């Protein structure tokens, strides 16, 4: 177990290291230099040379790479052009928002997805199952941002059930008592989390239904039926327990999906998280910020799949032995 754990940790670190290297390469592969002479007015070559020396750009690449790594290790991700503050600060204020959003979306995704999958498996090939199969296929195929816009229109603008964007009420939030403040936050969270969660839940339900139907055909399900158990008990106590295991692995896959969705959903709902930061950085041609969001989201994905693997190993000894 310890050896497996160490190997898994080493692999995660290696991937993060590779992503860091790719980010460094991306910066240097880009056409142009930071000091392009002769664009609108000629710059004295001596000045360019001095600037290059000042920022260390005259050093050989390996030296620059080492300096880049050292800066990263200190948590220095550079300066954001558009926000005029260190990239680290911008990211630090965005990550909690994204984690709240994706965490809630993940909960909706798995709870609703598993629930629908169970209902479908219980009614396999009957009318309800077919209807739900078509419904999940539809939601699974929706562009996330478009679903967000539709929900925003219906529940935000027409019905006025939920606010149309942001994390808190811009005016009243600070004047509210604690309970109302919490409610205010939840109301702002509802639509974006639902948007991400619904699309995810459709995928999870499709997966869960297939896993459950497979489990119901296994020998242990037949044994359970032979003992005289009613079908619901076979489904809930025997099939579901086994079919839930792969869900843990699905967690590792859900994270990239959620972070990708977060980019557009956060933009639709003006949710100040990592995704909106990336979208805004693109609009402002803010390279350091774009690259940093990529780096951080990759680290989040790697950490997520590491946690997923640990959970899987904890829940299922076969995973530990196989690896």
């Amino acid at each position, binding site marked *: 177990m310890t050896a497996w754990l160490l190997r898994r940790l080493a692999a995660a670190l290696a991937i993060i290291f590779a992503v860091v290297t790719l980010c460094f390469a991306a910066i240097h592969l880009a056409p142009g230099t930071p000091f392009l002479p002769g664009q609108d007015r000629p710059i004295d070559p001596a000045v360019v040379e001095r600037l290059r020396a000042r920022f260390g750009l005259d050093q050989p690449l390996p030296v620059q790479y080492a300096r880049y790594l050292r800066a990263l290790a200190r948590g220095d991700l550079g300066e954001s052009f558009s926000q005029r503050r260190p990239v680290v600060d911008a990211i630090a204020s965005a990550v909690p928002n994204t984690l709240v959003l994706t965490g809630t979306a993940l909960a909706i995704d798995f709870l609703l997805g598993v629930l629908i999958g169970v209902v479908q498996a219980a009614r396999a090939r009957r009318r309800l199952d077919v209807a739900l199969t078509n419904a999940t296929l539809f939601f699974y195929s929706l562009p996330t941002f478009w679903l967000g816009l539709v929900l925003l229109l219906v529940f935000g603008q027409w019905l006025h059930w939920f606010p149309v964007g942001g994390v808190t009420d811009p005016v009243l939030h600070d004047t509210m008592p604690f309970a109302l403040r919490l409610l205010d936050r939840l109301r702002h969270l509802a639509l974006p989390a639902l948007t991400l969660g619904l699309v995810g839940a459709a995928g999870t339900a*499709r997966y869960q239904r297939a896993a459950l139907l497979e489990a119901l055909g296994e020998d242990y399900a037949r044994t359970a039926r032979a003992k005289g158990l009613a079908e619901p008990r076979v489904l809930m106590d025997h099939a579901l327990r086994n079919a839930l295991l792969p869900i843990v692995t699905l967690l590792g896959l859900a994270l990239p999906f959620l972070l990708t969705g977060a*980019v557009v959903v956060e933009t639709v709902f003006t949710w100040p998280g990592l995704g909106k930061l990336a979208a805004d950085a693109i609009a402002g041609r803010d390279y350091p910020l774009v690259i940093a969001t*990529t780096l951080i989201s990759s680290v989040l994905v790697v950490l997520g799949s590491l946690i997923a693997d640990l959970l899987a190993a904890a829940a299922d000894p076969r995973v530990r032995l196989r690896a």
Partner: protein
Amino acid sequence: MSAFTWLALVASVLWTVVCVVWLRRRAGRARGDAGRRFFRYPMATSGLAVLVFFATIALAAPLLAPYPPWLQLDIVQLQNLPPSWLHPFGTDLYSRDVWSRLVYGARVSLGIGTLGMLVAVTLGALVGAIAGYFRRAVDAVLMRFVDVGLAVPRIFVVLVVIALWDRLALLPLVLLLGCTGWFPTSRLVRAEVLSLRERPFTEAARALGAGPWRVIFRHVLPNAAAPLIVSTALGIGNMMLLEAALSFLGVGVQAPRPSWGNMIADGREQLATALWTSLFPGLAIAFVVMALNAVGDGARDALDPRQESA
């Protein structure tokens, strides 16, 4: 829309029906029963019909679109008109005919999805086959690279490239989407090749003196076609959704060229007053991606009867 356009629309619907019926007949007469099984799924059959229809209107766009997609009809009088017989999907903020833009947008959206996936499948099949066939160090190096590729959320990589190289034309965009989308395919192909290379027929080919490339391209890859087809169908849908997301963020397909993604983005600001400008392109994406997923599911069940239908 003139009578001629309506006629062309009816003709493309009829053409779709004829195509699907013809394909179904052919599948019924074919030797294997995969085709027959495919048409037994109603969702897969209607998905195929949706795809044929949208491919038809994309190819015959000049006949089906009453106006050029960039034409601003009358910026004063004809702004944000609701759907009518003249403009079945209404007009947008710039007084352009939404139906015409949708038809021409089908070319862009379907084209990017299909070509991007073509690039991705080619790369993925190549890398997967090489890794699976040569194994050992080659496999280890390639698969670690794929691990990294899978760890980075794709949209961020695309955003980095777009940020560094500024606005992208259509072809670089397709290549970019293709080059960031092959990682899952390569895993899939590698797994197939690992088992296929041990089968007697590849051994026989090797015994007859065939080199590794000949074995890979003539014997191994054709036998991995079934899962590859399924993952391609599902992958095109993902590719289209990613294109739409990028265009929505304003960094994908650039105006005035219409894509379903940037049409939604254009209509976003006036969702409450001119719903139709965003609604129809969104529905178009949803239907096409749903059709691709349904066809992919149907193909998987038809090609691999061992698997339980999902």
